[in-house]
């Protein structure tokens, strides 16, 4: 009797993690937009309610075909309940990510605090609503991939590395030239940079190995340098950091003569969305 119960909790955790991953994947460009935080400063309570209602409505519509649970919604009651959970995930993730980047403080005041996290929760809610479409593989995909993956070790390493790089560029390139990178970095202490690094690694791991319930075993058995989950996560993070450094340099956000701590903090701050993109990219291969 104990086994199916443990299995249920495990599936539930996978589903919730997939929701969080979807929120980050779609919401990262919004998180790195200062206007989103600023609009939150003067969002009136009626407008906050409207945003919450719109996020809920969007989730209901998206949950009919998408959602974040591997098991599709069974009925209207189910869809409404999952939309409640989706909105809660969006709000929770918005609070967590804004706190991580030091945009929410206690001194911010309750009006601005609620305004910022509710404004950001709208794109996050959409991300939760399309989490399955972004992250979940159907059994069909899995089989064709399995055949493709069992190639030469070098070949699968290269294809994973290329996917991580491509994903990092797709998500990171629109964020790299913006003022948000210096702005966020300037207020961060070294401990917080470490926290951002830890979160990047954890999110990457969760997106590829946890949230993708079912395809997990396949990835663990594949060949190549990216073979164990830990080494793949670390290698993909290094690729994301390299892509982040390259883009920052190309867009002249950092220059060769700039101080080392500036390089490090900018690269780590941009590294977070790059890692998320890279993880999604590796899933797509």
């Amino acid at each position, binding site marked *: 009797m104990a086994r199916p119960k443990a299995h249920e909790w495990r*599936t539930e955790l996978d589903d919730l993690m997939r929701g969080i991953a979807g929120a980050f994947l779609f919401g990262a460009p919004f998180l790195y937009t200062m206007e989103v935080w600023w609009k939150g*400063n*003067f969002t009136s309570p009626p407008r906050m*309610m409207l945003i919450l209602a719109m996020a809920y409505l969007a989730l209901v519509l998206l949950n009919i075909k998408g959602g974040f649970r591997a098991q599709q919604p069974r009925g209207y009651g189910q869809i409404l309940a999952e939309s409640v*959970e989706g909105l809660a995930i969006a*709000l929770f993730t918005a609070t967590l990510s804004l706190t991580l980047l030091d945009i929410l403080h206690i001194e*911010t*005041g309750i009006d601005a605090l*609620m305004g910022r996290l*509710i404004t950001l929760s709208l794109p996050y809610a959409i991300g939760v609503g399309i989490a399955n479409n972004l992250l979940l593989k159907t059994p069909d995909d899995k089989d064709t991939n399995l055949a493709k993956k069992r190639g030469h070790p070098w070949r699968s390493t290269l294809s994973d590395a290329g996917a991580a790089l491509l994903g990092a560029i797709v998500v990171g390139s629109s964020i790299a030239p913006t003022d948000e990178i210096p702005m966020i970095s300037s207020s961060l202490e070294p401990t917080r940079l470490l926290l951002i690094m830890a979160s990047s690694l954890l999110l990457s791991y969760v997106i590829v190995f946890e949230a993708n319930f079912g395809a997990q075993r396949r990835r663990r058995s594949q060949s190549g340098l990216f073979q164990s989950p830990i080494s793949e996560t670390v290698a993909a993070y290094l690729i994301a950091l390299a892509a982040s450094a390259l883009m920052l340099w190309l867009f002249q956000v950092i220059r060769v003569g700039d101080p080392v701590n500036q390089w490090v903090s900018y690269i780590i701050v941009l590294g977070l969305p790059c890692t998320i993109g890279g993880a999604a990219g590796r899933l797509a291969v």
Partner: protein
Amino acid sequence: MSEKPIRNPAEWFSLAISLTLLSAVIATVASLWLKPSLKPAEFTVEPGKVRAANDHYYLPVTIRNEGDATAAEVTVEGTLTTTSPEEVSTTTFDFVPARSDAEGVLIFSQEPSAATVRVVSYQEP
């Protein structure tokens, strides 16, 4: 995975947590909405401890918006009248949300402990 017609305990658990979280958020927004006072932005400015570096004096100022409305482009001016001519230093805060604090630094060439600091202007966003 077997199809289950009803939610399992784990799903009920996360629905319960979600409902709690969501009702807390909605209750907070509702309380902000129903709160009758709508005081416009009002500021208090507190000078901090002076720090000397490179022949200049750095005077930190903490500004607090006591009102219920957010203010933008809040300009704080510090005036030091003990010198001749008097020395003025200003700084601008992009946003000071309702009932929140923000910190800035004014820089003077003379010891500014006696300086008066005040908000000279702001914009309504």
